[in-house]
């Protein structure tokens, strides 16, 4: 078992003929993910790494039993691609693209809410259920199946954490990247709820960072969880008031600070690590406890 995607997941790649779409289609296939079709307007009839390409999502879903789609379209076309996938009936959507306009994200999320679609991203590394399926740009080699659910705001940081777990012999049920933008499809809480219900997941790792109040909100739910939670937080040393890369990471007036997040998570019963290599140890303790 796993959350959101498992071995029955049949994938569509939107933007499959582009550089990233084509490269990561090969990586997903190499991982064993079931990539059934791709879409690229005007390129219907092509093949990319043996995967058939269609002009529209409607045509692809007509001809293949697609369950989810991953989007590698340049930012200005992401809203169009996302609405296309949703209106064609796709219920799980992973949007890798970064720099998607904020208002396009608002439109995408409103439509996803209307049609009950799970959106991962935008600006995410994606999602992987090790040994079952992968929709994303994460390296194939750093995961192994197991009992730990991981949910992260930030991509590379989650690789570091997952890699550390794997190196220490601890596998993952599913690793989910929420995405680094101000508006993304899932919150920590949304994913924590799924992990809480997933019988295979025994411990959950939350990879957060300074800025915003997503971790503080997650803490409210963590209080009610039966499963142990280990959190890692980046940004302890960040100077206040500076914008660090993405919108989440602004520290202002005592909100979203490192200290407030540590306090909220600790009070909720989570163990908080502040160096990446501490996570595996805390998880091991939680698994054994």
């Amino acid at each position, binding site marked *: 078992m796993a959350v959101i995607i498992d071995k029955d997941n049949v994938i569509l790649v939107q933007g499959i003929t582009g550089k*990233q779409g084509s490269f990561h289609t090969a*990586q997903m296939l190499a991982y064993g993910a079931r990539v059934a079709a791709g879409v690229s307007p005007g390129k219907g009839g092509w093949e990319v790494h043996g995967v058939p390409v269609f002009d529209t999502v409607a045509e692809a879903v007509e001809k293949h039993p697609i369950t989810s789609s991953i989007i590698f379209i340049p*930012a*200005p076309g992401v809203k169009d691609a996302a609405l296309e996938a949703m209106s064609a009936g796709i219920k799980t959507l992973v949007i*890798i693209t*970064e720099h*998607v*306009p*904020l*208002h396009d*994200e*608002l439109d995408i*999320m*409103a439509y996803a*809410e*209307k049609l009950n679609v799970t959106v991962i991203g935008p600006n995410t*590394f994606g999602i992987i259920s090790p040994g079952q399926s992968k929709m*994303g*740009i*994460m*390296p194939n080699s*750093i995961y192994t199946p197991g009992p730990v659910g991981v949910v*992260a*705001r*930030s*991509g*590379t*940081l*989650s*690789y*570091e954490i997952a*890699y550390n777990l794997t190196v220490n012999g601890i596998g993952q049920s599913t690793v989910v990247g929420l995405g*680094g933008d*101000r*508006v*993304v499809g899932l*919150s920590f809480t949304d994913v924590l709820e799924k992990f809480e219900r997933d019988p295979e997941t025994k411990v959950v790792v939350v*990879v957060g*960072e300074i800025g*915003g*109040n*997503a971790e503080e909100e997650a803490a409210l739910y963590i209080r009610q969880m039966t499963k142990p939670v280990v959190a890692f937080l*980046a*940004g*302890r*040393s*960040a*100077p206040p008031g*500076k*914008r*660090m*890369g*993405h*919108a*989440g*990471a602004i520290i202002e007036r005592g909100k979203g600070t490192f200290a407030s997040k540590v306090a909220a998570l600790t009070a909720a019963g989570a163990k908080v690590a*502040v*160096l*990446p*290599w501490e996570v595996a140890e805390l998880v091991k303790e939680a698994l054994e406890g």
Partner: protein
Amino acid sequence: MKLYEYMGKDIFRREGIPVPRGKAFFSPEGVADFVSGLPSAVVKSQVLSGGRGKAGGIKFPGTPAEAEAAAGELLSTVIKDLPVHAVLVEERLQIDKEYYVAITVDGARRKPLVIASAHGGVDIEEVAEEHLVKMHVDVHAGLQPYFGREVARRMGLPPDEARQLSQLLVKMYHLFRTYDAELVEINPLVVSGNQLVAADAKITLDDEASFRFPDWLPRVEERTEKEQRAAEIGISFVELGGDIGVMANGAGITMATLDMIHHFGGSPRNFMDAGGGAGTEATARALEILLSTNPKAILVNIFGGITRCDDVARAFARVKETVGIPVPIVIRLVGTNEEAGVEILKQQGINAYRTVQDAVARAVELAAGKEAI
């Protein structure tokens, strides 16, 4: 992109939001002439930071000649490190009441959020929670007049002001959506002789949507020259002041890298997120920016995903062979195309690290002047 007040008010005017009579001046010339047509005037320096009033950036001249003098004075000042390039000369409003109203995005709810208060004219952060009205907009419904009436009711406005606020919010929302705004804020929204008037205008547009900004809209630049160079190649760069130059791929891992440097007793010179799949060319230029800050050592922490290790390695090889890398450099390299990347670096005489703590510890040692490997 933050807009200057005068630009925001130009947009307000286009959208039918009432603003005082006014005009922007980039030199004092013509100010006296313009002011002679107004009953009384205010001259406001155009800066992007808040608190310009306390910093002396707003003048209330008594005569047209005084207004022109005030404009000249303000145009030669520097407020919070920024030279004032423009002043806005406006009719001075009679102020009966001051409200606050803004539209922004609530990321947690994934919806536009209207914030309003009958206690305007002050820093909104200082207004008590119970005096704030907050209502989310469903983009499928849009912001309809009823929404404004409900905001007005919760603010406790009388009927005529409620009607005006409702019209105003419909227009603000239209602006917010059509201009790709992150924030549209009016503080204070003034009641002046029974009319609601936007006495200030604060608009921040979403940079990610700049490809569809209107052509007539001037571009406003707030970054330092180095930050600007980094932005042009799609890289986030913030100067911090320590001695270890840092490059990593991803905002989270970069922050974590800074944390680890602190943990080992070091001090980072900068934040540089070269993530998002930067290729060889962009990475090479990012490294050049890093070198231009003269760090004592450089720490590179790459966990390849969409970023490919061989692209990164090739960038280092290129810079080393062309301009050279005159400081000690520590590279941690794992992930997509790792073997190829490690091999390229080896040919340059650089041994890549696999484990982040070893790499960080080594960089801190090197910056502290301990001997190189």
